[in-house]
């Protein structure tokens, strides 16, 4: 994280980008029991990947497709009711991967208790669920904001990956509350109100480009005042 590398009194914000490399774990599930068992033991980066990669890979789609778990249970295992429960888990309520994983596990376990027939469902080998994890590379970009105006200019130029890094990765994967933007706006620029508005955005309900425009709108509004 660039922020931690900055000098103590440096109030600038260096934009970083993060890029993923997908690693195949070789672990696969054909039924809900296998799936649940693996869900408990795969690395956190696999949970992160399957609940977030759609946001980045389909950044232009609205609404975004559900997470991979919900999608597989609905379309391959043929249990849309359970799929819907998983799709509607409120990701933003979880500030850690562990908490998100536990919620997914709990949701499935409770559902199976009520719906025993789900245990009998299985898929053909070519529709098995393959667990994938990711390695993230965090790379500092040359873009540095020192005030609201330069922040606004850079927001227009950075990649969706950079935006994604500061909004999602920092918040969830690196166990931080809020996001990098709200943290910097509040602590360095003392823009508490704007920081609260940025923090209050639910990034999971926007496409990346719409999210970019939303933040740009909030910053522009603040500059006008």
């Amino acid at each position, binding site marked *: *994280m660039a922020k931690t590398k900055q000098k103590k009194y440096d109030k600038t914000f260096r934009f970083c*980008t993060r*890029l*993923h*490399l*997908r*690693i*195949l*774990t*070789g*672990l*696969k599930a054909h039924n809900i029991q296998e799936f649940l068992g693996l869900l408990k033991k795969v*690395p956190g*980066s696999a949970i992160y990947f399957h609940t977030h990669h759609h946001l980045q*890979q*389909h*950044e*232009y*789609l609205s609404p975004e*497709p559900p997470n991979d778990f919900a999608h597989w249970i609905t*379309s391959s295992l043929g249990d849309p009711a359970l799929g819907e429960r998983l799709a509607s888990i409120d990701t933003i309520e979880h500030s850690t991967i562990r908490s998100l994983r536990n919620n997914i596990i709990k949701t499935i376990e409770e559902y199976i208790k009520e719906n025993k027939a789900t245990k009998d469902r299985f898929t053909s*080998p*070519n529709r*098995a669920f*393959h667990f*994938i*994890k*990711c*390695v*993230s*590379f*965090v*790379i*500092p*970009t040359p873009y540095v904001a020192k005030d609201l105006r330069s922040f606004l200019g850079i927001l227009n*130029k*950075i*990649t969706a*990956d950079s935006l994604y890094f500061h909004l999602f990765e920092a918040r969830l*994967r*690196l166990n931080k509350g809020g996001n990098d933007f709200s943290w910097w706006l509040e602590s360095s620029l003392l823009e508490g109100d704007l920081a609260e508005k940025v923090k209050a955005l639910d990034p999971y309900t926007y496409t990346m480009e719409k999210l970019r425009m939303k933040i740009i709108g909030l910053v522009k509004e603040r500059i006008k005042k």
Partner: protein
Amino acid sequence: MTRLERYEEVVGKNKIEELKLIAKYLKGKTIQHINSTAKGGGVAEILQRILPLLQELGINAQWDVIKGRQDFYDVTKSFHNALHGKKVKITKKMYETFDEVSCDNIEHMNLYGDIMFIHDPQPIELIKRKKDLKNSKWIWRCHVDVSQPDKKVWGFLERSMNQYDAAIFSSAQFSHSMKTKQVLICPSIDPFSDKNREVTQKEIDTVLNKYKIDPGAKPIICQISRYDALKDPVGVIKAYKLVKKYIDCQLLLVGNRAADDPETDKIYKQVKEAAGNDPDVHALLVEDIPYEINVFARVSSVIVQKSIREGFALTVSEALWKGKPVVASAVGGIPLQITHKYGGLLCHSIEGCAFAIKQLLNAPEYAKKLGENGKEHVRQNFLLTRHLREYMLLFLSLYSKEDVVSL
């Protein structure tokens, strides 16, 4: 204009800047690619396109080819078929031939890369030289569908695979439980190749005149694929007939003759029989001329890929890149390229295929939206620049064991 600058027009300046940012960390590294042929086939094609870009980014990317002989290539062709899951008899003598030629290459090849990038099974045993190249990292790139491989051949190759630092597969379905780190990197298309670039009106007219196709007469449903049972061209004709009951349209099947595929004539005959005397079915057996394929796709209203089994099916990305609505079977790498109802329609049967085609022909606005979404999905995920980025990230990952790498 440099090669990379041309790509800026397609993917945006910031994506190219991103490639330059990553490449900075690989300056001075030599990447030596090794495969079995300098010309022909998908591997050579992708290397020809990727290497100049890596070099432009300041990475010393080189490419060498192993030496083989006919009996060795016969064996590796059998390996290839066995890895695809076909029943093939591999004799002890064949394994010996493979080892013998591999030993020759191990002994005589000049290996010099910091990162050795070995493609497909033919040169896989070069890994035996790993200990001679101090601090070298070794990658094995599997371009084959190994979802259901012949266990004996897989086991034979796995001894070598497990000595690599990483193995790359094109789909999660091809992964196995194995010691080596397995990386998922999908193939890609080049927007500037003759198969994908913009075509001129003159080129379109030339091709349409040559094959006597009139897209203005009736909407065209098109499948571009080899005449292979696994591509199900007869199934496409059946789907077309179901559509034709309600919508006046024409069907264009375009396939070339693969030199190593003895079944082409048999399947083509079946296609002609299934088409009967319908003047609206154009089943073309063509030479592999990339810009003609490009034109066929661009004049079509709906593109179909009704395969029964697929490796990755880049034909889908090629169609989507032209902004065309696509109906394709949910097999192999196709669901990675099409998100159902967002970037195209997936199907599981002839009837499902026909239903999806009817939906698209009857709702041109919906079809247009799917085509636009599909094109954006390809822009983000299946162009050469993404492929390049993932290769470079893989190179960097070889020097770290962490899940989060701060550069």
